[in-house]
């Protein structure tokens, strides 16, 4: 560079260090940062207040159901009751963490959601991307989707049973439907929210249409796509539970309904809590995959 040297000096030392050393430093730096943030969080009142809130809730539940046994509350299972049932090796109602049936139900539900979710992603994401990219296609496809969307997924139960063979297909179809709308629409939104400047810059740089699609549309829509996937998995669980309660033979939804019918009330709560945990894990997994694929946004924070 003719003339100014001070600017080059700024970066001279950085330029000498090879990339891998830099990357390592960055990694160590982020670990230190995470540890610092954890310590700060533990020192604040936040975690303890949160704990207090949870304890208050459990305490109130316990008081109302088992101790005071207020009129309507006494029929509900209390936390102690539920816990004892859950950890006993010979549970009164046959379902605890030691009974294989429990895990069988979890697997049934999880597997159904997984199938529905993958189908919804495989169909919804490309559809959404294409609709966002080609206006003509959107004009034809979008109205159909928008007309079907207001119909609650569970209103499809009878039709699904009529249309699809067997017992599994309708259940998976319902979970799929719910996730499909969320995925497609969020993907579409993602593409449409990409700043026009990126398209222009890509055109300036001589991109052909397939480059724009693969290198601008897809990465640009990723954050919204993953939001859509998280929402999708959530509504998939929602619909699955309902479908299982109406017409299933296995699964956590079925377990809830069956326990109710058989008056095995503590099992209801066990199943509900399990649902919450498993549902949460699914969302967390998707968030994790998302953050790995989109390192550029994680670092921005």
């Amino acid at each position, binding site marked *: 560079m003719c003339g100014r040297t001070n600017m080059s000096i700024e970066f001279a030392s950085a330029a000498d260090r090879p990339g891998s050393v830099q990357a390592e430093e960055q990694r160590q730096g982020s670990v230190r940062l995470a540890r610092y943030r954890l310590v700060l969080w533990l020192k604040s009142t936040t975690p303890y207040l949160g704990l207090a809130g949870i304890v208050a*809730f459990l305490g109130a539940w316990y008081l109302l159901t088992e101790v005071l046994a207020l009129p*309507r509350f006494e*029929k509900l299972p209390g936390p102690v009751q539920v816990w004892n049932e859950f950890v006993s090796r010979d549970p009164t109602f046959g379902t605890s963490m030691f009974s294989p049936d429990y895990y069988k139900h979890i697997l049934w539900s999880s597997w159904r959601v997984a199938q529905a979710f993958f189908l919804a992603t495989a169909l919804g994401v490309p559809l959404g991307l294409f609709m966002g990219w080609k206006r003509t296609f959107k004009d034809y496809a979008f109205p159909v989707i928008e007309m079907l969307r207001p*119909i609650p997924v569970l209103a499809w139960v009878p039709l699904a049973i009529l249309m699809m063979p067997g017992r599994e297909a309708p259940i998976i179809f319902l979970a799929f439907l719910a996730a499909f709308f969320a995925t497609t629409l969020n993907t579409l939104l993602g593409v449409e929210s990409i700043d026009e400047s990126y398209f222009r810059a890509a055109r300036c740089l001589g991109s052909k249409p397939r480059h724009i699609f693969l290198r601008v549309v897809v990465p640009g829509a990723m954050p919204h796509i993953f939001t859509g996937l998280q929402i999708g998995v959530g509504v998939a669980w929602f619909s699955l539970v309902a479908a299982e309660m109406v017409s299933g033979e296995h699964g956590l939804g079925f377990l809830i*309904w069956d326990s109710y019918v058989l008056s095995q009330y503590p099992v209801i709560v066990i199943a509900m809590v399990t649902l*919450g945990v498993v549902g949460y894990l699914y969302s967390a997994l998707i968030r994790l995959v998302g953050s790995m694929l989109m390192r550029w946004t994680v670092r921005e924070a």
Partner: protein
Amino acid sequence: MKRSQQTVFSKTVYRGFISIALLVTLWETGRRLNVPMLGTIPAPSEVLGLLAKMILKAEFWENWISSFRRVFFGFMAAQIVGIPLGLAMAANRVTHDVTFPMLEIMRPIPPLAWVPTAIIFWPTTELSIAFVIFLGAFFTVVINVLDGAKSVDVRYVRAALSLGSRPRDIFFRIVLPATLPSIFTGMAVGMGITWEVVVAAEMIAGKAGLGYLTWSSYVGGDYPQIVVGMISIGVAGYLCSSLIRFAGKWAAPWQRLF
């Protein structure tokens, strides 16, 4: 800068009509030719014919009223409890820290999983269904209000403080109006969830309503009526969401949608 929409308005609408008309035509022809894949799904002509007859009957509309009543009570309850809670959580750090973890733990549990518990606890079916609806909409409302209130630009608050506002003014004249769009978004999403829950709850444990109508049509083997039920629910849900969107625009006219 969003991607500009260059197509002329009418071309989009025109294409929409074409695709829907095409779909309906294919469906109708498929049924007439008894295409095996469509199974026993009734044809559009049957459905429309039945719909025309049912509109004239009182009991059809009674189902509408039943569902709407449940939706209204459950949904309203969720707003009445949820909006103030969300605002309180945004305003007060302690409130937020105490309630947030518990809410986050309860949120992943699908509302319908609560149906048996609700039936055990509440004396009537109506109350049980309303409770489940409440739960469905409640979490959405709280999250949306919380997000909206937290993201009020601090510059607006500072400007208000410079202009000599008291805490009460800040809340009612700055935070509340700024959060209104999020409140209405929460309501719109909550309304969608509400209808999902109503339909499911009616199918599982109801004796009247549009969800019950759809389910009993299936049980009774009246297939065209299933589709009538589905369409009714879709229309009802869409009307409610439109109402909310309209109310949102009225309440927050400054929101320009680009």
